[in-house]
């Protein structure tokens, strides 16, 4: 697929800051989508509000740019009313975990067939760098000038506990692994969740001695630990904790029956 078959030419180039990880995720997604041979006309992209949720606006397909935090709820309605369409949700850490946390947990639980891609940049980027639910402990932001005293939320572990069929987390430093996981997620029947820890040099790195996007990539590389290894670690382990550890890998891959099969909408469409 040609690049401008996939992206909307009239929206090009995109608005993201220099060095933003969302562009990297877009490359990986384009690659995964292309290699799977999916058709754009039978795919709907849903986004909430925020930097990451702008991605659907650039893809040359039907896009639903919704209200803040509700993307999964919109996608649930869309998917159940038209089970033949493929639904991909682009969302961010604030959109998915903070304002939309309830929809996220219940989306995983309900297990409707959709792929949710969360671009976790540890900060509210579009509004200027306020602390989010995934800001690591003691990191600075415009609303935590003395360091964030809250502990961050582990979105992927929540997805595992809530019942998603496929959960993986990678950083933008792991482009090949990420592409592979995106492919697996889109092929998976049921709720699949891919979390991408991404760099926000402008609003997160700049306030935490990593103003260069490459410094953030280096940080990801040095602090990423495969999940197999962290399972043996201390029980009070919190993701992205004081030590800044990022757990990466495929968290779960299972085949719970998905909701549309259970209520039978697949049969009569």
């Amino acid at each position, binding site marked *: 697929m040609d*690049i401008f078959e996939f992206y909307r030419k009239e929206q090009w180039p995109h608005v993201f800051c220099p060095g933003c990880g969302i562009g990297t995720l*877009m490359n990986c997604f384009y690659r995964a989508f292309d290699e799977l041979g999916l058709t754009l006309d039978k795919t709907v992209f849903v986004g909430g509000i925020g930097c990451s949720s702008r991605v659907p606006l650039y893809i040359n397909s039907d896009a639903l740019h919704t209200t803040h935090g509700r993307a999964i709820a919109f996608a649930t309605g869309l998917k159940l009313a038209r089970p033949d369409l493929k639904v991909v949700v682009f969302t961010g850490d604030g959109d998915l975990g903070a304002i939309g946390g309830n929809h996220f947990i219940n989306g995983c639980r309900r297990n409707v067939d959709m792929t949710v891609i969360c671009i976790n940049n540890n900060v509210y980027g579009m509004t200027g760098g306020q602390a989010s639910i995934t800001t690591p402990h003691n990191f600075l932001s415009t609303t935590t000038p003395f360091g964030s005293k809250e502990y961050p939320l582990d979105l992927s572990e929540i997805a595992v506990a809530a019942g998603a069929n496929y959960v993986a987390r990678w950083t933008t430093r792991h482009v090949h692994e990420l592409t592979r996981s995106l492919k697996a997620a889109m092929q998976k029947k049921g709720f699949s969740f891919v979390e991408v820890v991404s760099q926000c040099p402008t609003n997160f790195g700049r306030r935490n001695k990593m103003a260069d996007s490459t410094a953030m990539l280096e940080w990801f590389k040095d602090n990423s630990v495969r999940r197999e290894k962290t399972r043996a670690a201390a029980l009070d382990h919190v993701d992205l904790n004081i030590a800044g550890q990022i757990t990466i890998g495929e968290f779960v891959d299972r085949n719970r029956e998905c909701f549309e099969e259970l209520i039978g909408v697949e049969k009569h469409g």
Partner: protein
Amino acid sequence: MKPVIDLALCKACNICVYICPKKCYSKGADISERGYFAAVVSAPENCYNHNREGKLICELCVLSCPDQAISWHPETEEERKK
């Protein structure tokens, strides 16, 4: 194949310079029309995909470039000999 940077898209984040395992890229010294010190492909002959056709390998730069500025182009005869 050789990587080429589109100066109209590059925003000089230098991720390619950092990520390339073969040091093909270097930081730019000239301001592009868009107003950035766009990175340059200084040593394309080091690339894993030098003189390679068909399925490419590595591709860290193309996948990582946040501005979709890097693309693959066939080499000229002269470049092939390097």
